[in-house]
């Protein structure tokens, strides 16, 4: 098996595992279907946007929770936005964390929110590193003249 085939196989396995472990859900597969010759980097662009957006939201969430008097509706707004963006790209685990987050907001539960924020950050970091790995794999495949396998 040559290097391209190896990488392709690895790519498929890695992508599958991301789905099985619920890092990604069906919505991500939807997005992959939207990339074509006119927009080959669509997924990469959206995911990159998601990173930027997420980091901003996590920052907003931290700041909002650091306030002497926490405005839980504002915190909930940020969590809602985060839930929306993660849901739109199929970032399943991150989305679920956001749902939990909002539940804590409704209860005005500061400790719950803080713990949730930590978990959310963790989920996000793991997801981001997985994506970075995936994109590296893609580059390797393309560099060696192969095509990115499409996932069904």
């Amino acid at each position: 098996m040559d290097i391209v085939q190896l990488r392709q196989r690895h790519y498929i396995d890695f992508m599958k595992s991301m789905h099985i472990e619920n890092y990604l859900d069906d919505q991500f597969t939807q997005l992959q279907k939207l990339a074509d010759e006119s927009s080959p980097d669509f997924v990469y662009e959206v995911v990159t946007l998601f990173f930027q957006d997420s980091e901003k939201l996590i920052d907003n969430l931290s700041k909002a929770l650091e306030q002497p008097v926490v405005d839980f509706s504002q915190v909930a707004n940020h969590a809602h936005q985060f839930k929306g963006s993660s849901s739109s790209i199929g970032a399943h685990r991150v989305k679920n964390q956001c749902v939990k987050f909002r539940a804590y907001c409704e209860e005005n539960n500061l400790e719950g929110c803080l713990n949730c924020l930590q978990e959310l950050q963790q989920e996000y970091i793991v997801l981001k590193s997985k994506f970075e790995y995936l994109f590296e794999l893609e580059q390797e495949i393309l560099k060696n003249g192969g095509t990115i396998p499409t996932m069904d």
Partner: protein
Amino acid sequence: MMNMGRNGVVSNRRWKSESGIDLCPSDSVVEAHVLAVDDSLIDRKVIERLLKTTSCKVTAVDSGMRALQYLGLVDDQRSSVVDGLKVDLIITDYCMPGMTGYELLKKIKESSTFKETPVVIMSSENVLTRIDRCLEEGAEDFILKPVKLSDVKRLKNYISKDDRSNGRESGVNKRKERDGCDLSSESQSPPLSRSPSSESSSSSLSSSSQSLPFISPSTSLSPSEPLDLLSTPSSPSGPLDCATPSSPSPEPYGPLDSPTRRLKMTVPDQLGSTS
């Protein structure tokens, strides 16, 4: 003149056109133009891509206000720039800071120029009261986020092929219509039955339109003043008041269903989506 190209069966723009399944009808010269409204950059990018995949031209804006500006519905923004602007469908997020999708929907439906343009609402929350409110206000459909390709394919049903290729007038912002009291001359019947000469009877206040329960009575008054669409006090809404999760209800709808499909569509969907 507007009868040209009209087939005997299609009398309602909501009916699926015969090419409902054919997303890129070869004889359609004009692409549908969709205005997408969403405050989330990611969602805008996704909906734009989804729509372009189904051969639509897309204009994406980040707020209800910008949408109104684009449509030339903001008082001091009226200019010749928006003359002849053709928008075949407006798709908007419900939850947005400032002006919600619902408020935007109302303003569009109150306008003389775009009230015939189909408006679709998107939301991540499956709240029945919200859905009902939007439908009552004239929304064509309500799509649950995240938006999928099957959802967007379904939207094509609201853009009749005949309308596009015949250069229909609903959704076309004509400067003439914005001056004077032309509101009553707008028929509530589907665009195909409207003739260009209807605009010339703009001075008549007597209603020639079929009356529908939710036409705002204020639109038929004030013949000399432009309709001020921004002064209507909307229900007080916080930055994202609509974000409160009221029902963590499971989504009972499959990919081909929308909450409204079963209400509105009498023709079974033939699109075999695999999503």
